[in-house]
């Protein structure tokens, strides 16, 4: 799928959504298009390009540039083709002498105030202004270049990723409109009138403005006014490869645009169904980590972690690891080793790791990082609806009338979906935010949540139960849907439970922290919506009742009939790019690919026959079980692919003790991450740009990841796992990841129709994809639930054991920020650190004042398991009694403070609730001092390995 570079096709105006067809002729060619289509788009559909500047099909028509004029039979004048809708029988001429003269005249005016530096311009050869000048036959500018102009306007280079050069601006407003319509931030405007009109980021530099660096303005700019710095420095691309973003669970399609093997730009793919041409600051700009000098590209081994690394070839590395693992099993038993896979890796890679464990290690000690994020989604949705997945497409939100966003912060953590959501809200959809923090959606430009329910950390189930109580007690539930679609006896049991006065908003107000009247009003709003959709994130799952909350959400959706059609549903927003895929691929210790329990004899037999081994029918260890067993000495060998548990998992000191206790830790990663500092074998990983495979996003969409450049270590990750397996004597002999997908499809009913050929043909598909749904399934549970009848689970509110008291009076909750991603291994190695160079403690002014803390002060944060030190930021986003931080920087030690309290059903850690005390301090915590020393020593070991080579 390598293509010579050319800009993505632009039809000038967006597609019209109408069933009615209109017939017209354009330059003598007759065609039919949907009513509402612009003349410009109709022309483009038959291959006629009307010259244009202010129009692009990503934005609504604006009609300002006056270049796209056409002649229409029977009409006076020269209408703009972008703003003129087609009419039945219309006869359009796009090329006439009169039009040519008019267009040249307009272009003369533009070019009279534009630098004539095309040969040295960064976008030479990739500039719509240049193209249009050529198309209209501009040969001279009669006005000269000595008049008043903007050519001396100074550049704004404040943003690390793009430069704003107003001297080249034609004030077409595409950037301003992109910021409004596509991104929804409203950071840009046109200041001044007439000749003085200029694009402005609110009167300040871009970096100091409200700009979120999504790059939509850069994409929209038809000139070199807004240009990526990578293009300025390296030139325009010469070929492209279509692939999928490796950041969040939105899974945006991208065109990697390259010169040779160097990526010079990532452009959001207009045909990518998850993002439809939009991107965020991470996906579009933060790709430089892939070639960062910190990359470790040679395998390394050492006997113990107090020794320098020794660089070796691949064969020696995997042989060393395999010998150690077999030795451990001989001495300590078959179950003394295991593996952890990562949602950052492809479906094919995580499938191979679980196969290695089950078929090679001979046990089921395989777990994945979804353990610590969305494992409750898997449990909760499987129990209630029958499938461990979200129910909709992202585009479904465009049909939603009332939207609940709970425990999620889409504009920071899922920004491209956040923009889509904001667009729907600007169209008038109603919004309920349930979150301890006042997230951006509560009050954003042109958006105001109807209700913000500031739930106390740990009380989600109380709020959800109270909402259900209101709906049932006020007879707002959808009786017909429930009677037709749900298990009657379970519903009756649940109705009796939820109707109890103990579940009323008033009874639960003290626990939930939510005003009962507000909650009642919010519940009524959701229940009476024609289409009500729920979107939730880790603020729901990462609790001691994470699974209960997911089931309570599913109950609400079933109760109101909001499942099985467009605009509704239960939609988990997945944290990392391939959380859904990693779970689908059998990465949990109790189930095989396709969410089938190991005890299922038929399924196990299928895998046994395919793999030619006998499988252990019993569940293996979960990640926290592995750590406990390691500390006890029962678990001795661990293979970790692409996951940094020493930074991401809770109770860091316990995790470190477990890692330090292992006889052999094998880490496969692109950097020497925090976990790798405890390793005996380092297998260099490949970034998403260096391998083929697939990712599955939060809407079950399987998209191709395509190799853009050769793997820096010589092996893609699946090849490294295969080499390790072969060294262990486990049969694996794939020549390409497509063969792995073929095996997955042959063994997994929901994937049976998936192949690379189908993905290439369709662009992407949403599973289930099989004989019943040859091109995938956009909406789940349409006529019936996957489990047959929907199940109303009893969702009793059980307060967390992690409670504030006099010693630990504040509740700490953790989260993410727009510019950084998860543990920050990637984004910290890019200019994204411009916006978030360190994690800080957000604290309400009242709590800060009580403790003598001022903005910028060092705050010591102490929990029951550990302490760390962060800078203070006074914030009104948190209410009194609640503090907040992120965990993007290792030195912050956010997880030194979080406890190993976890979800009752899945052991997903309760990251969102930690009782702490904060106080003013003057020096780092003891753990931070130790971490700094340890980190320094391990970096020296790495440098010595390099020097000794």
């Amino acid at each position: 799928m390598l293509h010579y570079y050319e800009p993505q096709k632009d039809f000038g105006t967006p597609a019209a959504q109408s069933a009615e067809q209109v017939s017209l002729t354009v330059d003598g060619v007759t065609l039919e298009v949907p009513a509402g289509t612009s003349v410009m788009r109709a022309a483009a559909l038959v291959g006629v390009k009307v010259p244009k500047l202010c129009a692009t099909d990503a934005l609504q028509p604006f009609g300002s540039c006056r270049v796209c004029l056409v002649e229409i039979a029977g009409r006076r004048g020269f209408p703009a083709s972008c703003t003129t809708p087609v009419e039945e029988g219309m006869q359009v001429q796009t090329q006439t002498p009169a039009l040519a003269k008019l267009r040249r005249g307009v272009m003369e005016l533009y070019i009279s105030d534009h630098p004539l530096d095309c040969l040295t311009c960064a976008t030479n050869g990739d500039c719509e202004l240049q193209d249009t000048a050529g198309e209209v036959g501009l040969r001279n500018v009669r006005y000269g270049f000595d008049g008043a102009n903007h050519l001396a306007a100074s550049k704004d280079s404040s943003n690390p990723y793009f430069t704003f050069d107003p001297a080249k601006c034609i004030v077409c407003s595409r950037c301003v409109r992109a910021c409004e319509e596509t991104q929804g931030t409203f950071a840009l405007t046109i200041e001044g009138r007439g000749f003085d009109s200029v694009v402005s980021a609110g009167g300040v530099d871009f970096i100091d403005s409200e700009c979120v660096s999504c790059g939509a303005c850069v994409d929209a700019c038809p000139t070199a006014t807004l240009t990526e710095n990578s293009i300025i420095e390296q030139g325009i691309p010469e070929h492209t490869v279509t692939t999928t973003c490796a950041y969040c669970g939105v899974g945006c399609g991208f065109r990697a645009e390259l010169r040779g093997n160097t990526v010079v730009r990532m452009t959001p793919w207009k045909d990518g169904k998850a993002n439809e041409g939009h991107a965020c600051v991470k996906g579009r700009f933060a790709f430089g980590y892939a070639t960062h000098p910190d990359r470790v590209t040679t395998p390394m081994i050492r006997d113990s972690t107090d020794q320098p690394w020794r660089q070796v070839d691949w064969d020696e590395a995997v042989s060393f690891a395999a010998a150690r693992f077999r030795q451990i099993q001989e001495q300590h038993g078959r179950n003394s080793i295991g593996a952890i896979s990562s949602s950052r890796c492809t479906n094919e890679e995580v499938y191979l790791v679980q196969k290695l464990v089950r078929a090679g290690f001979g046990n089921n000690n395989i777990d994945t990082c979804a353990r610590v994020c969305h494992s409750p989604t898997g449990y909760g949705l499987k129990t209630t609806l029958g499938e461990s997945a979200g129910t909709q497409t992202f585009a479904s939100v465009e049909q939603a009338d009332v939207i609940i966003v709970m425990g999620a912060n889409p504009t920071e953590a899922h920004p491209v979906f956040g923009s889509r959501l904001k667009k729907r809200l600007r169209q008038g959809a109603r919004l309920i935010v349930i979150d301890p923090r006042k997230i951006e959606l509560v009050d954003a430009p042109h958006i105001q949540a109807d209700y913000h329910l500031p739930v106390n950390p740990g009380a989600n189930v109380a709020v959800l139960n109270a909402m259900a109580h209101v709906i049932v007690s006020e007879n707002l539930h959808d009786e017909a849907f429930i009677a037709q679609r749900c298990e009657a006896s379970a519903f009756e049991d649940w109705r009796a439970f939820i109707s109890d006065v103990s579940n009323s908003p008033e009874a639960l107000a003290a626990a939930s922290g939510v005003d009962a009247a507000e909650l009642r009003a919010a519940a009524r709003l959701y229940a009476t919506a024609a289409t009500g959709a729920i979107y939730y994130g880790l603020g729901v799952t990462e609790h001691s009742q994470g699974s209960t909350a997911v089931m309570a959400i599913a109950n609400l959706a079933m109760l109101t009939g909001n499942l099985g059609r467009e605009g509704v549903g239960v939609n988990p927003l997945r944290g990392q790019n391939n959380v859904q895929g990693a779970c689908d691929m059998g990465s949990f210790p109790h189930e095989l690919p396709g969410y089938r329990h190991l005890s299922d004899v038929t399924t196990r037999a299928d895998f046994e026959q395919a793999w030619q081994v006998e499988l252990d029918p019993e569940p293996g260890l979960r990640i926290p079980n592995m750590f406990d067993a390691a500390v006890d000495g029962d678990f001795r060998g661990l293979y970790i692919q692409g996951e940094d548990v020493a930074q991401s998992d809770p109770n860091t000191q316990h995790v470190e003790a477990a890692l330090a206790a292992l006889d052999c830790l094998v880490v496969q990663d692109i950097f020497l991450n925090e976990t790798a500092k405890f390793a005996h074998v380092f297998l260099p990983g490949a970034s998403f740009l260096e391998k083929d495979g697939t990712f599955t996003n939060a809407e079950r969409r399987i998209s191709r990841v395509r190799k853009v450049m050769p793997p820096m270590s010589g092996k893609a990750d699946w090849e490294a796992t295969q080499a390790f397996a072969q060294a262990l004597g486990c049969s694996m002999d794939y020549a390409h990841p497509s063969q792995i997908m073929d095996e997955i499809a042959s063994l997994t009913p929901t994937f049976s129709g998936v192949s690379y050929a189908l993905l290439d043909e369709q662009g992407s598909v949403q599973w289930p994809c099989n004989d019943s749904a040859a091109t995938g399934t956009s909406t789940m549970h349409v006529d019936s639930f996957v489990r047959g009848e929907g199940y109303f689970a009893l969702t009793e509110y059980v307060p967390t054991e992690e409670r504030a008291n006099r010693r630990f009076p504040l509740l700490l909750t953790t989260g993410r920020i727009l510019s950084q991603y998860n543990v920050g291994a990637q984004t910290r190695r890019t200019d994204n650190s411009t916006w978030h160079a360190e994690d800080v403690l957000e604290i309400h002014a009242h709590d800060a004042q009580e403790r003598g803390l001022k903005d910028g002060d060092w705050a010591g944060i102490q929990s029951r398991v550990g302490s760390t030190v962060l800078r203070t930021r006074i914030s009104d986003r948190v209410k009194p009694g609640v503090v907040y931080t992120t965990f993007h920087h290792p030195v912050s030690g956010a997880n030194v403070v979080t406890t190993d309290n976890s979800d009752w059903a899945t052991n997903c850690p309760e990251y969102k609730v930690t009782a702490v005390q904060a106080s003013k301090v003057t020096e780092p915590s003891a753990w931070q001092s130790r971490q700094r020393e340890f980190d320094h020593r391990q970096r020296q070991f790495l440098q010595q390995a390099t020097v000794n080579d």
Partner: protein
Amino acid sequence: MSAQQTERLVRMANQIALNFGEERDLTLAARRTGEHLQKFWTPAMREQLADYAAAGGEGLSPAVRELYSRS
């Protein structure tokens, strides 16, 4: 396995039983807790908890005690 790990298993089992509604229906909660442990815990973890219950099971919740009194 260590006493610390046993303590953790006890805590986890109690938490499971509580969330299966042991305060509403002890018998049902015990049955569901047993099914949950069978489905998600390793045999070694189950065995360790069973041994602990057989040795008196101090700190086990009523539903977990009920589970092991039946088996």
